[in-house]
């Protein structure tokens, strides 16, 4: 398998944020998370000539992040001399495929929401992500319910356009 730097960069950009979010399931510190993800991606680059990936790169990356994370948790536990601490089961479940797909779906939603105009974005997140009603938003932002409604319509229109859906 040969990758050009440009191809690698594209993989990096695509998977960086999803992998960090996946890693946050195992590690809390953002610095640790980013270190793990960077290490895994750099390793992909260093080995891309040697490894032959049967499955897609998605599973390779997510599985590597998971293994690396568990390795770190283990070594830290050992340092704390809590050798018999049980690592919760969730770390060993093998839903990397589904998990990865879900995170990638989230990334795509998130990245498209990020592109909405600021006010529109704020209102959309308040309503759809945080579950506030139009009335609550109107009070919170001191704008009319009508404006909230308009902004929500606009958000959906822009999102649909972005994904090429005509409705």
């Amino acid at each position: 398998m040969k990758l050009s730097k440009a191809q690698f960069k594209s993989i990096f950009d695509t998977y960086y944020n999803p992998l960090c979010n996946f890693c946050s399931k195992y590690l809390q510190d953002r610095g640790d998370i980013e270190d793990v993800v960077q290490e895994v991606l750099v390793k992909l680059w260093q080995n891309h000539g040697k490894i032959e990936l049967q499955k897609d790169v998605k599973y390779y990356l997510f599985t590597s992040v998971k293994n690396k994370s568990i390795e770190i948790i283990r070594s830290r536990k050992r340092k704390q001399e809590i050798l018999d601490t049980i690592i919760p089961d969730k770390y060993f479940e093998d839903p990397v495929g589904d998990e990865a797909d879900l995170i990638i779906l989230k990334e795509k939603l998130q990245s498209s929401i990020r592109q909405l105009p600021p006010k529109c974005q704020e209102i959309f997140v308040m309503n759809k992500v945080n579950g506030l009603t139009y009335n609550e938003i109107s009070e919170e932002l001191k704008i009319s319910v009508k404006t909230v409604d308009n902004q929500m319509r606009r958000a959906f229109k822009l999102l649909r356009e972005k994904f090429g859906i005509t409705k």
Partner: protein
Amino acid sequence: MSIVKSLRNMFSSPEEKKATMWIEEYNENSTALTSMLTEEADFSILKGYQDFDASAAWNKIDHLIEEDQTPVRQLPILMKVAAAGAVLLIALFAIKPYISGSTIDTGLMALNYDAKKELNLPDGSSIFFDKGSSVEYDQFQFTDERQIAFEGRAYFDIAKSEQGKNFVISSGEFDVEILGTEFEINTLSDTPQVIVTEGKVKVSKGSQSVIITANESVSLKDGKIVKSDVNSKNVASWMSGELRFEDESISAVIQDLSQHYNVVIEVDANSDLSCPYTSSYKDSSLETILEEIAVSTGGSAKVTANKVSLSNVSCSK
């Protein structure tokens, strides 16, 4: 549309296609996404989804990502046996490239190509190299200086600089300064040449310099730069492997073949080079093409290890 870009697919190996797939597989679950875009949809799954700074991370690891030199495959050798008599000559020799003032420890990148290969540069420019070409540039200085040293044959698609910095190519034979454009340089031939297909290029040899634009070329003859028009449909044909001749004179055909295969084609004095010739080829060997020409002109062709010749070409057949 650049020739380089349209050719990219043609030359992409299975590995390259797989790499593209890796990137594209990310886009597969768009059906799931579409179903979420209704007013009733619940986006609460995004709660706790964090943003990390991918571009800052890239800057951190960028220096670890070094492109090694690529080529592995050798293309088949075209020539077999030899003959005599000379009218048209295009020879094979390479010129050592240089970048003045560069040393190894400044991040000098030197790449040699044993097979056709494209290189993407950090400024968005791309270069499509023929086998036997090489390029050198300073990785650290490149973005600021846009300077490379080059030998061989390549098709350049140079991106416009945001800072208005012109791209400069030193070839040993001449210096080429690009004012935003697409063009070909060939130093493998005995008349080193620069052909422009789009835009504007300044070519210098010592104190001489000339500016050429689309469908013009500059060749080096006896140390002098000569500007001429390019009428051939087969410019950069070596990239696609395709050659087309429509009522071209045999002399023009030979000129194109010499360019395409980078060889000397000798023609004896008895041949009538004004005969018209029409045919097209894709990835054909030089031998096949010359035999076809010989058959249709009643002449004979010989292809040997280091000489290629055509004799007794006549229009009557």
